[in-house]
Each structure stands twice: as structure tokens, then as C-alpha cells.
């Protein structure tokens, strides 16, 4: 069984108040590593066997139509072993 992963992130030019809130909470807890934080969504889709090119094309389409809003978000589709 393979897993197709879709990562959805706000476009770089779109303000991310949730990411900013996380970024400002980190130093309060003593974590000083973050220059900035962006928050996104991750979808894990299980398929039988190895994903075919046709399946991946379908997932790309679903990501564009439903999983992301192309007005404000970008997405990346990849296969995870």
C-alpha cells in the first residue's frame, strides 16, 4: 500500500495569522530557532499498490478543485513509500 501526500500551503504573498501566532508563541516557551512560521495542511491518501500516473493526475485535479483554494493556496503532490 502506498501513500499519496498532498501538502497545501498559503501562497507566500498571503498573510498567515495562524503561522504568525505560532511564531510569536515559540520564543515565549524558550524556543528561539524560528525566524518565521507558515502553517499549512497535509492530506495523506492511501491507495492500493503503487500509484499509477493516471491516479496521480487525478489527485492533482482533486487538489486543485477541492483540497486547495487556488486563489490563496499552493499545493504539492508526492508519493511517500
Amino acid at each position, binding site marked *: 500500500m502506498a501513500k499519496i501526500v498532498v501538502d497545501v500551503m*498559503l501562497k507566500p504573498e498571503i*498573510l498567515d*495569522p495562524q503561522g504568525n501566532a505560532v511564531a510569536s508563541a515559540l520564543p515565549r516557551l524558550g524556543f528561539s530557532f524560528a525566524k518565521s512560521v507558515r502553517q499549512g495542511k497535509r492530506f495523506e491518501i492511501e491507495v492500493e499498490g503503487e500509484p499509477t500516473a493516471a491516479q496521480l493526475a487525478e489527485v492533482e485535479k482533486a487538489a486543485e478543485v*477541492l*483540497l486547495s*483554494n487556488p*486563489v*490563496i493556496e499552493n499545493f504539492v503532490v508526492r508519493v511517500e513509500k
Partner: protein
Amino acid sequence: MRVGVITFPGTLDDRDAARAVVAGGSEAVSLWHADADLKSVDAVILPGGFSYGDYLRCGAISRFAPVMQLVIEAAGKGMPVLGICNGFQVLCESHLLPGALTRNSDLHFLCRDQEIEIVNNTTPWTTSYNRRKDCYPAKER
């Protein structure tokens, strides 16, 4: 005039919208999200609430409800459509309206009286406005 009010699972303000339609002198027609028929309405209101639990993105799942395919088609032919609150989000997700809604930049929940300016009283929804300003209670996050 017959004005449809759509109820999605999670819609809260459909009864308010239907009352407003009747108060405005029209007939309110209840439409269910799974309907495959607009019941010959002349216009449609998408009321507020939390359709489909706001899952994925607000309005993102409602946009694909069977009744919405008919609304999108009819809107393209000129049928007036009004989206209030969550209904407005559904219209954005449907790409009937441009843009998208995001969280308030300071992450604060706002609940206050909001003054509005009526800049156009010739739309089907604003013809009875004869004053320039109005005020309504707004809540948003």
C-alpha cells in the same frame, strides 16, 4: 416573488433569512442542499452558519452540493444570489465572487456593530434602501 433559502447541513440562519424574505413581501421557499431542483425561485439566499462544519475550508464542501450546481448555472444566467456570512464564503469558494476569505490578521474574534455605506441602491437586493448609511451586528474571526 419566490426567494429560495438554502439549508446545508450545519446552516444556522436559514429561518432568519426566510423571515426576512417574508418581511420584505416575498414568498420564502426552502431549498435543501441535496435538491436537484430550484423550485422555480426568482432569487436565492445562502444564509449563515457552519455548513459541513466548516471542514476543509469554510464553504469548500458546500460548493459541491447538488443544489449549488443549479445556483451557479442560474447565477450565470442572471438570477440574483445573496450570500450572508457563511453563505458569502460559499459564493467565494464557488468562484461566483472573486477572492477568498482569510482569518483576521490579529486572530481576534470581532463582535460589534458595523456601520455600512450603501453605495448602490439599484441592485435587486438594495432597492428599498433610501438612506446612505446603515448599521448591522457583525461577528467574524
